[in-house]
């Protein structure tokens, strides 16, 4: 084994954690799609943590992204079903505020499911 082989091997080994994260840890979704009645869906990563204010047809919905999960924390609807739904983190999972026409869905590269039935 030459010195160059050794360096290359080290570089490859160092790259393994990246590969793992990229291709095996896809059960929890990595991105969030936000859909509103107006305009195309907005897609953003589930990190870093942040709070988003999304304009719906009735008013604003507040969506919190935290540690790879997302949820509605406030919404301009009356029944708050969207908030009761709680956190979503698995690929394909959705939470929607239908009155306000705002919904969020976790997207993942290797989604466990192609669709959710409920």
């Amino acid at each position, binding site marked *: *084994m*030459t010195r*160059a*082989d050794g360096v*290359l*091997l080290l570089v*490859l080994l160092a*790259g393994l954690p990246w*590969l793992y994260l*990229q*291709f*095996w840890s*896809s059960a929890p979704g990595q991105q969030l*799609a936000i*859909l509103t*009645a107006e305009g195309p*869906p907005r897609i953003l990563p589930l990190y870093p943590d942040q709070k988003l204010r999304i304009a719906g047809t009735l008013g604003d919905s507040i969506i919190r992204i935290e540690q790879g999960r997302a949820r509605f924390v406030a919404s301009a*609807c*009356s*029944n708050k*079903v969207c908030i009761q*739904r*709680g*956190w*979503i983190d*698995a690929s*394909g*999972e*959705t939470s*929607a505020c*239908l*009155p306000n*026409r705002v*919904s969020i*869905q976790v997207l993942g*590269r*290797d989604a*466990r*499911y*192609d*669709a*959710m*039935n*409920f």
Partner: protein
Amino acid sequence: MTRALLAGLLLYALTGCGRAPEVHQHAFFAFGTLVEVSVADSEPRRAAEAAATVEQVFQEYHALWHAWHPGPLVDLNRALAAGQGMAPDPSIRLLLELATPLAERSGYRFDPAIGGLVRRWGFHADTPPQGPPPDEETLRAWQAHKPSLADLYWDEGQLFSRNRALQLDFGAFAKGHALDQAIDRLRALGIDNAIVNAGGDLRAIGRRADRPWRIGIRHPRAPGVLASLEIEGDESLFTSGDYERFFEYEGPRYHHILDPFTGWPATGITSVTVLHRDATTADAAATALFVAGAEHWQEVARAMGLRHVMLIDAAGVAHLSPAMAARIRFETDPPPPARLGEPLP
């Protein structure tokens, strides 16, 4: 150097196996819900065209069949309430032709003639009602007339009702029929591998290039997935649950699946899942079985020609037809207690 090359090849192979074939997804709002169209094995442009076609179908029917926004169905209901005849929109005529035998076979547990009851409960609104529930007297008054689809008759192309309390509401049915129409349109466009998911009720055709479509069934009482199944070919999966549309008033929860015979939300069941070829039947059946409950679901399933049924009762017990038990995989640990029904023909 050979070893380094091998390592490099290995790296290449590892990254390659992580890539799943592309599925194009589009989403829009219709029928008061989120509709998602997933198309596999197609050019992005064709997939987008297909999704636009599906959206057109849904928006068209949304306007034609709306039970409380001004339109053809509201006009028809007004005429029927006034004791007059009317030639309905052809799409409404077709809905009635499809709904009538299904209602009959369900023993009128599924009955689109109960629009007046749905309205009294406050579900004819764009946002869920706040309560209170209708008082006993209001419900008794409606019950005294107890309209059903059997009260309708045709005379020279006009629709009449023997019962003026009859108000049509296709809420438990229209989504299924729209899904069937959407799938027909996709096929006409040459799309053979797709899922149209209308707010959790779906029809899937073909497969996802590398494998069958995988569908997760949401847990009715907990976050996450209760069970999953695979669809390859052409099947519809419908679930009716008490968690979908409801309101709480001074404690109790009142959901939207109303029992035509009591006038109250049906009790004893939290969700019903039906797998069937066409979405129209699956939609009507999910409602009918929810009303039928744990005691009568098997006779209703038999009468409606179903084979794949799952009910989750209020105690969390899964009641399954044998064919459904063979298809479904529970994803909870431990799986729910299950009770197997008699085989459905």
